[in-house]
């Protein structure tokens, strides 16, 4: 008797990605560069977040041709993004055999109230979070992996740092709480009591939590690892830089050896220009992807 799509199988898949870098790619050629550089997985997209931001309008699931092209090009796992709450986009990606679905605020949400019930799917999901309440709600809906939301496509690490710090701080709070304080905490944060209890017992999230949204340099990746990330997503940071091959390789190395400062210094020498960055105060409320759906 064997079972597919169990929590252990879905969460376990993300465990295997730990300490690694997942890179956004838009075609087979970029996917091969990412694999060659040592990425643990690629995210197949029609446009990287910086271009989605620039293009405006409604951002949807990628053309399946692109996803298929990337799946055929590499042997590492392939992830793809579905709009928040878009049950059908997610089912289409699952039917295509995508290895992980990102229910992502980078795309325009299809449902402003409900996320997808991810327990219904055999394929595992990753979702973004800015704090423990969001993290626990997503786990409750069946997410098998989390990532910070950060602010995608900005090349500015400040929001990813804020979100990672917030989640870590709240885990510490929960760990130190008496059991009777936990229910009020659950109420105030809109978080499932059972999942909070599990976090309180183990002192950590029950799924891996990667950093995402604004990582542009090897030092950014290492910073997120030091703040407690299990791994790193790099969206626009690689293929919007001067030298994608070198940026990709260097970010992979800095993620593995995040506390070897001499090495990170070497990796950063003459790397060329990182992706163009955006200051948060220049974004209007509607530019902020992280505020989409909580």
């Amino acid at each position: 008797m064997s079972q597919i799509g169990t929590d252990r199988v879905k969460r376990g898949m993300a465990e295997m990605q730990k300490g690694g870098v997942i890179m956004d790619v838009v075609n087979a050629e970029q996917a091969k560069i990412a694999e060659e550089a040592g990425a643990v997985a690629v995210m197949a997209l029609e446009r990287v977040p910086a271009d989605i931001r620039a293009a405006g309008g409604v951002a949807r699931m990628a053309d399946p041709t692109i996803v298929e092209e990337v799946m055929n090009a590499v042997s590492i796992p392939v992830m793809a993004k579905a709009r928040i709450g878009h049950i059908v986009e997610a089912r289409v990606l699952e039917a295509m055999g995508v290895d992980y679905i990102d229910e992502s605020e980078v795309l325009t949400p299809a449902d402003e109230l409900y996320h997808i019930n991810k327990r219904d799917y055999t394929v595992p999901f990753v979702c973004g979070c800015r704090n423990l309440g969001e993290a626990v709600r997503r786990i409750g809906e069946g997410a098998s992996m989390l990532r910070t939301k950060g602010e995608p496509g900005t090349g500015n690490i400040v929001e990813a740092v804020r979100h990672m710090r917030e989640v870590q701080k709240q885990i510490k709070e929960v760990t130190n709480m008496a059991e009777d304080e936990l229910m009020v905490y659950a109420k105030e944060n809109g978080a499932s009591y059972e999942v909070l209890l599990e976090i309180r017992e183990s002192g950590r999230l029950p799924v891996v939590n990667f950093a995402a949204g604004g990582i542009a340099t090897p030092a950014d990746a290492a910073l997120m690892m030091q703040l407690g990330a299990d791994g790193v997503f790099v969206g626009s940071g690689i293929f919007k830089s001067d030298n994608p091959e070198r940026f990709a390789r260097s970010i992979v190395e800095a993620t593995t050896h995040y506390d070897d400062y001499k090495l990170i210094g070497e990796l950063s020498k003459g790397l060329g220009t990182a992706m163009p960055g955006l200051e948060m105060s220049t974004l209007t409320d509607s530019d902020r992807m992280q505020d989409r759906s909580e």
Partner: protein
Amino acid sequence: MLKIGVLGLQGAFREHKHSIESCGQEALIVKKKEQLDEVDGLIIPGGESTTMRRLIDRYDFFEALQEFGKSGKPIFGTCAGLILLASEINGQSHAHLGLMDMVVERNAFGRQRESFETKLEVKGVAEDFEAVFIRAPHIVNVKEDTEVLATYDGQIVAAQQGHYLAAAFHPELTDDHRLTQYFIELVKKSKLKLAAQ
């Protein structure tokens, strides 16, 4: 007490460390090749084999790992670790460490949606081992001196050749530490043998 290393370049190394410690032994996450001198046996964890291989090369681990195995110290490869140990990989012109005589097939059970868990009989270990398979490889064939420890659906999923042990599934993802304990016994024996030489 024994000191068991877990190759810590990428993947599920923390879970293996936990499993070793649950068996009452000391675990060391190996990130630099010099650390191999400190350990009596080594686990190569699950993760992405292509990624791990690139990091092995970049940090000059390749020869050090081969020497470690050839000196008689036990190595246990799980999933990606099994692929790294194999002498031949179907569809690829180059294998990696090539320490175990076996041909392996990557992603042999399909993509992530086909990943599964099941109860397995593992010879000398358990009749009902909880085995989690994630984009798992299987072993296509082994040499005569290699013992097949487990099969699933007619395919070889665990094997042992002398002091090398390989499993296509992930013993570190469950609380079932019996396979880790089996490896620890292997390390114990080899340590006594190496000390006698």
